[in-house]
């Protein structure tokens, strides 16, 4: 099966920003322009995460999302500040194919995963997990790696699968924005643990890092941000490199 190569946009409306270690934001462009660029380069999907609205308890800002959806003919995932079935519904109507949820499900109401899966189908419900490594385990964080939950990542991953999530987007609070490679152990444990697809993010600093996580953990997809945003590599470069290394990717 092809490993999906996904462009991830971390958005502080109206800009795509590059968080370093989930802190210190740098503006890198507008979401719809960057999404279109990655679409033209051959991305398999684009995922758009509003990284500030949840923290500021603000409503989702829909304009940029709709504009971005309109520039694509590939699947488009959206997350950030999703707090209700109405939010899911609104995002699907604006052109999202999948909606990712973290904070609200983790900290307040996990039942929303069951409800959303039943109404919109499992495949449309993604749970975004922000994992922070401690000595012997990983803890789930929310609000872009700022708020602790006390929940163990392994237990939570299993729980969200049982509740009907169709996919996990796995991020690492420690590795995010560092461009020094993925948390390989974490990726492997979660991919092996659940039967649903796992997309891994946080840490792609080079083509080798991407190859390494695919070979080691066999995720369904890899989400890539800064490597693309700073034009260190295009989607096309990444796919060519992986193909040369006998890793299957789509055209």
């Amino acid at each position: 099966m092809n490993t999906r190569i996904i462009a991830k946009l971390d958005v502080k409306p109206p800009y795509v920003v590059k968080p370093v270690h989930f802190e210190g934001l740098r503006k890198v462009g507008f979401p719809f322009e960057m999404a279109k660029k990655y679409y033209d380069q051959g991305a398999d999907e684009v995922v758009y995460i509003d990284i500030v609205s949840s923290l500021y308890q603000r409503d989702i800002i829909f304009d940029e999302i709709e504009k971005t959806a309109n520039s694509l003919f590939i699947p488009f995932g959206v997350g950030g500040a999703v707090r209700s079935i109405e939010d899911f519904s609104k995002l699907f109507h604006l052109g999202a194919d999948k909606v990712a949820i973290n904070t609200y499900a983790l900290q307040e109401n996990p039942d929303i995963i069951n409800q959303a899966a039943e109404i919109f189908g499992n495949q449309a419900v993604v749970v975004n997990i922000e994992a922070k490594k401690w000595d012997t385990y990983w803890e789930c964080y929310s609000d872009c790696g700022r708020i602790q939950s006390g929940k163990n990542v392994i237990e939570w991953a299993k729980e969200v699968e049982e509740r009907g999530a169709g996919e996990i987007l796995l991020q690492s609070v420690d590795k995010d924005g560092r461009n020094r490679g993925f948390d390989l152990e974490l990726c492997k444990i979660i991919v092996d643990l659940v039967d649903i697809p796992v997309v891994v993010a946080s840490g792609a600093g080079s083509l080798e890092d991407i190859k390494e996580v695919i070979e080691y953990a066999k995720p369904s997809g890899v989400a890539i941000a800064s490597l693309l945003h700073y034009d260190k590599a295009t989607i096309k470069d990444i796919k060519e490199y992986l193909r040369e290394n006998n890793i299957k990717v789509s055209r």
Partner: protein
Amino acid sequence: MSNIVGIVNYGIAGNIHSIKKAIKEAGGKTVIINKPEQFNEVDKLVLPGVGSFKDAMQELKNDGFLVALKDNKKPILGICLGMQILATVGFEYGKTAGLNFIDAEVNPMLVDAKVPHVGFNHIEIVNNNTLFNGLENEEFYFMHSFEVVNYTNIVTLTEYANHKFVSSVQKDNIYGVQFHPEKSREAGIQLFRNFINMEGEK
């Protein structure tokens, strides 16, 4: 010209917007169909996928579409769950009767791999069909946990984890694709173009 495509709008979920956008990109016009009487305004129909097999059939019934779809002679393209409900029976959340346009049943994918099957994957054309003109060996975007089991109306097959499943069907005016052409780059636009350019019965 017969390029006005009606997109059947039933239920609350689903991404009708992206189908509309892709058909427009392919050079067609679209009408969102909210009630069966509107079938007269269009040349062709698209049946999108919404939620589960069971809910989709219930919604079609509630909105009065069941009879209209059975009487329909225009070309109709079912997408994803919209293809699955063309079958005789589905086994998602219990056993539910489908539209019975295609002699098939819809079962969970049983493979030694992650389900849902998500991502771009190849199609293998086993019976030539105008819907796939110029699309030999192309890749399309899949996102599904169930598959249509049929032996008589297969147009394309797709392989996932050493398991071949039916990725599109056709019988008379009925077409179904398991993948999402609206999410499949230029190949998907071409498929809509082929659908728009087909001769249809008025």
